[in-house]
């Protein structure tokens, strides 16, 4: 089992899903992949298909329309899967809290493993969030 855990810690593949964000978090998630930050150092790859991913990175407040799709994508991901909520909007609704079309936060829809706060979080913070998730995994 230790080998599996070792492998899991070293190869988290991300699936990025925007649930209605303002794009700021999204471009910071993308920026984390580019030369200055280069998430691939940690073995992180951005994947397109939910079937291939381990970590669901969600940005933005969850809108009513996107909720079903979010659940579907979450269900399509193979176990074990983890969710990281990036940005204040995603964590709690942020400035959109109280809007008629926006849920209170991601964890009112699906369980969340790590939170990255900031509006938007800097790429360093996102990397820190992924690392925090890995630490949590290692401890479990």
């Amino acid at each position: 089992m230790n080998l599996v855990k070792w492998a899991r810690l070293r190869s988290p593949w991300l699936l990025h899903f925007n649930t209605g964000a303002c794009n700021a978090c999204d471009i910071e998630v993308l920026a984390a992949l580019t030369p200055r930050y280069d998430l691939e150092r940690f073995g992180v790859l951005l994947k397109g298909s939910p079937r291939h991913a381990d970590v669901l990175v969600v940005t933005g407040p969850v809108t009513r329309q996107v909720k079903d799709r979010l659940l579907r994508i979450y269900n399509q991901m193979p176990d074990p899967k983890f969710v990281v909520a990036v940005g204040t909007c995603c964590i709690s609704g942020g400035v959109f809290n109280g809007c008629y079309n926006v849920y209170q936060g991601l964890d009112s829809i699906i369980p969340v493993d790590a939170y990255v706060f900031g509006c938007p979080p800097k790429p360093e913070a996102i990397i820190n969030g992924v690392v925090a998730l890995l630490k949590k995994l290692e401890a479990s």
Partner: protein
Amino acid sequence: MDENKVAEALKNKFGEKILKIMIPKKGEEIAKDLVIPEIMEIKVSKRRVFVAVPAEVYKEVIRYLVEELGFNHVQAITGLDTSKFIEVMPHLGRGITVTVKTRIERDKPVLSTITDMVPGASLHEREIHDLLGVVFEGHPNLDRIIVPEGWPENVYPLRKEYAPEQPKPLREVS
């Protein structure tokens, strides 16, 4: 063509049919007891013309602006609920912005479409239809579009009586 010429051309063409034309200038005070009291003062703004028209001549005025004066670009169409009326105001033009303001009854919000003249206006009209419930006569496709699937009929989020309500969480948050 500057804003004065636009105003003059409109005045010459339609005369009494137009309720009011305003060219806001710096510091100019506009009296509030005009034909449409809710259309209010604007102080600093260049290249803006506001034309208030009754709903009957709305389409004619737009047609004149689009086809004769060349304001063939619809910047946006604003829909607005004043809690007595619904106002619809297309903003036309690339340089000068001509805002045509018209108002319709809240109970019977019907207005003729302008998509036949400017196809690009289609989306704006559908948006107003969706958020305020205005029916644009002659519009090719007025399905509800913006609000999520399963949104109740006859509930229009931008109407004053609609109080925003956040959706319920799906799971307990510890």
